[in-house]
């Protein structure tokens, strides 16, 4: 049968951890690739402890909301790569795979004897992607990094927050998925190249560079004019009003922005304050920009009486750009996202059924209803399938590996 999902013919060996690398491979897994996530009982993906703070329960490593959400649709095996048998298994997998992904600091794969030249020697078509914090070369290559330090180093905080306050972090850890989606694009670019040449290649993705690339205009400002763009709080370079306004209820907000005179007049009508359209302080875009503190106060008086969702519907129907700030509960119940299949429910052992974001929801392909088919794997869940069914190891060999702690299903010492 012809594969129906775009990546149904691809197999990926996934030695990544935390969120960046796993997000790269998750895009492929969600659209049909067989992704084999490699951990070990000596060294689990550290992200298995992420976000389950305060839960002091059995098998805590299976309870991370974050790990469980970014490893859906993957198979999971354990391999202690310090053991020559494990390394041999890893290489056997590489031989029958298309892509190898990892995001250690550069020395790790080299120390295992699993750097790109070693992999290419056994499979010239293999595409290998590394996503270390600072890239695979340069003086900082061995400096590790976490989402927070990468966000700082990439330059985002100096452009975020109020001009008279501290630089602000997103706190979303989002440089990981930013690097991750770049990684997916990089692998796809290499795959399209391989279609022509039959040859794989090595991809060196610095999480910092991938993120700083999203600030190109600010970099160019300094290059062209020697000036450092200011933090602008919730302001816009020329549109006003522009900000988050408090709504009815506790901690409810509405994002609202006015770009043109026509929009301003519509806003005055929606707020039932037509006299404002004749107020000279707000007549033109420049006037509104100069008097935006006064404008904010006027708008806030109105928004405090409004439900944030209702205000969005009324304003959007009038042609004004407005959006409620949605909390997790509201996101999970939002009718638009429900209609789009943005979240997908899946049952996972130990945890039960929960909704998870569909990793390819932002890039829907016609003819494909993307959903999550498999929950994130338990530690070593697919050892028998991958080692036995795919690689042909005998039950005795697999049992011996388990006895020697080369593979396993519980972290050592737990």
């Amino acid at each position: 049968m012809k594969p129906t999902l775009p990546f149904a013919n691809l197999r990926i060996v996934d030695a990544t951890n935390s969120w960046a690398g796993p997000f790269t491979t998750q895009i492929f897994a969600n659209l049909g690739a067989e992704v084999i996530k490699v951990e070990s009982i000596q060294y689990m993906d550290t992200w298995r402890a992420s976000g389950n703070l305060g839960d002091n329960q059995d098998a805590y490593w299976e309870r991370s909301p974050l790990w469980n959400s970014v490893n859906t649709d993957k198979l999971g095996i354990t391999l202690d790569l310090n053991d020559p048998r494990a390394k041999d298994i890893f290489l056997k997998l590489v031989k029958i795979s298309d892509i190898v992904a990892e995001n250690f600091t550069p020395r790790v794969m080299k120390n295992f004897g699993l750097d790109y030249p070693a992999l290419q020697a056994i499979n010239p078509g293999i595409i290998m992607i590394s996503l270390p914090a600072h890239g695979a070369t340069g003086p900082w290559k061995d400096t590790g990094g976490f989402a927070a330090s990468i966000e700082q180093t990439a330059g985002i905080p100096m452009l975020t927050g109020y001009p008279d306050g501290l630089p602000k972090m997103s706190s979303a850890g989002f440089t990981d998925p930013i690097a991750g989606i770049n990684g997916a694009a990089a692998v796809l670019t290499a795959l399209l190249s391989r279609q022509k040449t039959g040859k794989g290649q090595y991809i060196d993705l610095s999480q910092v560079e991938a993120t700083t690339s999203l600030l190109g205009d600010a970099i160019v400002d300094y290059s062209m004019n020697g000036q450092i763009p200011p933090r602008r709080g919730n302001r816009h370079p020329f549109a006003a009003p522009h900000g988050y306004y408090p709504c009815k209820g506790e901690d409810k907000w509405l994002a609202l922005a006015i770009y043109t005179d026509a929009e301003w007049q519509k806003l005055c009508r929606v707020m039932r304050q037509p006299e404002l359209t004749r107020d000279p302080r707000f007549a033109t875009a420049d006037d509104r920009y100069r008097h935006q503190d006064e404008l904010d106060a006027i708008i806030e008086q109105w928004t405090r009486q409004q439900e944030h969702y209702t205000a969005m519907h009324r304003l959007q129907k009038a042609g004004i750009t407005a959006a409620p700030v949605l909390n997790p509960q509201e996101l999970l119940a939002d009718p638009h996202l429900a209609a789009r299949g943005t979240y997908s429910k899946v049952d996972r052992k130990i945890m039960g059924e929960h909704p998870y974001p569909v990793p390819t929801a932002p890039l829907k392909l016609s003819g494909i209803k993307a959903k999550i088919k498999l929950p994130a794997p338990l530690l070593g869940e697919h050892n028998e399938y991958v080692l036995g069914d795919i690689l042909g190891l005998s039950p005795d060999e697999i049992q011996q590996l388990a006895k020697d702690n080369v593979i396993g299903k519980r972290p050592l010492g737990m």
Partner: protein
Amino acid sequence: MTKALGKYKVIDISRGIAGAYCTRLMAGFGAEVIKIEKPNTGSPLRRLRPFKSNVPGIENSGLFIYLNTGKKSLTLDITTATGKQIFLELARRADAVIEDFAPGEMARRGLGIRALQQINPKLVLTSITSFGQSGPYKNYRLNHLGAWGMSGARYNDGTPGVKPVQIGGWLTHYITGLFANAGTLTALYDRELNGKARRVDVSMLESVMLITCYPTTIYAYRGLVHNAVSKERMGIFKCKDGYIGLNLYGRLNFELLCSFLGLTEMLTDPRFSTPAAIFEHFEEARAIIAEKVKDREKMELFKSGAEWRIPIGLVPDVKEILESPQHQARNFFETVKHPAAGAVTMPGAPFKLSSTPWQLTSPAPLLGEHTREILTGELGYTPDDIVRLRERGVI
């Protein structure tokens, strides 16, 4: 040199940052990208900051230059019958079209997916919108502020009741462009293998939500609306000559920091004895630390912190980023000479491919710079046609 996307021709009729960033990545890896702009006024990006010498002008926008380096510019009024005809001729020869009109607008102009795939069944169409092509909000619009707000990103920072703050720059638009790029490449790959050309429906809201999705899964598991994990890390502090970031992951980092700053009394203080206690007394903890770092220099803190194995981060501004020894060693920045703006230094490859490297060989195009070349070339228009088209305002 080999180009990974060398055989692809891409028509970019988008107006925003997302579409332009999507095709920037394709141009960098060798695709031929033709940017279609409105005659006379050009892409709306040309009217956005920064401007060379702070003087607005159609050829002066640093944002436009960054996003469109390596592309060609063709002016075309697709609301005219001839303009539409020319667009269809371009689409017939293209592999992908990238657009960001409101849902249904291309179809109303007779340039929807059906019309396009009728003349070119192998054409991938990538459509970028605020909310996607379907769903109850599909005709609503989002901007940077709205997308960041609606995504729920602020529920990462554990500050209920405090007004949210938008993320800096135009990050949400760029992020949407990244998903548009990955989606377009997925569709091209699928076409190579399965022969089927798909429509890619890219939604800004879903793009931003996905990369800030911590809180929804945590809520689904634990019923927590405000995820305050980030508070453990302490965040950014003012020091003598700038700022530093403390990125404490786990108790060990906290203990090391307290010893490093001579704050060992914090370790026995019940207010800071557990992560939960620290969350509760977060501002007090920050105040004590702030007092200790405010008179120290950032480089000294960064370097001695590294010796103590405490994850202290520098918080560079764009000038310091341009001077980063790591970026310089990796040749991350490239300088492109632009006929109007002069030499412009900008980020180069967002990722490095070993045998098909990034290469942008031409500066961002002047408005309509390649109109004549493209029309008289493979489309076969004569110089007389060009004059007539120009007089009628089609190009």
